[in-house]
């Protein structure tokens, strides 16, 4: 499997965190990042959504280091929101978009090097990872087994009062679907 072709990923359903669903990774997200040769977001898809280091040459070197990227899937999400509160294609408030929140301690980024072109990055304090998903109702996907498409990953600043969640989560999203204690 190519590092530029990540597999579908498991996730808790937005309406029931105890039910598991499957999401595809947006081909647009992968292809547009490839168009500018931006590797870091794809490495982060593997590490934080697939739950494995990207299958690139020399990755064992990174896996053997003292600090290694935190492997997670969306089942490690601490919260799920719905609605981006901004225009998104036909939606004035991005109402259908789901946002999962993860709290990995160490992430991954591209770094030009001889042995391995990925490096571990300790996630700065007050920073959380958000993952945007378009559910199947609003985007065509290639399989009836897939419930939606992951369209973006973004590290964002965390909320000053609730550091596991994104800054101003009360107003930047329309609805909280669930939050784990």
């Amino acid at each position, binding site marked *: 499997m190519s590092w530029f072709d990540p597999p579908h990923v498991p996730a808790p359903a937005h309406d029931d965190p105890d039910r598991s669903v499957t999401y595809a990774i947006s081909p647009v997200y992968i292809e547009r990042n490839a168009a500018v040769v*931006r590797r870091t977001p794809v490495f982060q898809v593997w590490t934080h959504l697939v739950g494995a280091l990207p299958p690139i040459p020399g990755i064992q070197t990174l896996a053997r280091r003292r600090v290694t990227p935190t492997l997670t899937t969306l089942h490690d999400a601490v919260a799920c929101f719905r609605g981006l509160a901004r225009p998104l294609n036909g939606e004035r408030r991005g109402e259908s978009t789901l946002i999962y929140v993860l709290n990995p301690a160490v992430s991954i980024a591209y770094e030009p090097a001889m042995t391995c072109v990925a490096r571990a990055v300790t996630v700065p304090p007050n920073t959380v990872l958000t993952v945007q998903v378009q559910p199947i109702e609003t985007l065509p996907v290639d399989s009836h087994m897939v419930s939606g498409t992951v369209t973006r990953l973004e590290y964002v600043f965390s909320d000053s009062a609730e550091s596991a969640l994104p800054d101003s989560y009360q107003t930047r999203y329309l609805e909280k679907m669930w939050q784990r204690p």
Partner: protein
Amino acid sequence: MTPLAQMDAGQLLAARYNSTAVYFSDSDCVEYVKEDTFTIYERVDEFLTLVWDDTKLTLMGFKLKGFRYIFETQLKPIFELHDEQFLDLVTALEAVCKDVGATLTADHKRARAYKAAMKLAANDNVKLSGDFLMNAAA
């Protein structure tokens, strides 16, 4: 040099990052990031997000959200008038400023964020080209 579209996964690992603006159709945003590295996104408002490095001190880029709405309401006439191949993102940021209007003058933090994004777009001569503009102008 091999064209990007023909590169395989191995060649993409070794290729040089091409810092240019990119439109993501399914999240409807244009993004410009200076380097292929770890970044943190700071939401300014419903249209603009700033992109910082891991020290949170260096501005690495910006993201214009709801870009199809901005293009259709503000930019399409300008684009068609000049028959351009590229869209200057300073023009796009100015269009958003016009759209959000007076609220910017009352909010200094937001105004500073827009100024920072415009300065970066101007200094780095950030332009958008490609499929989005061809499809949108059709």
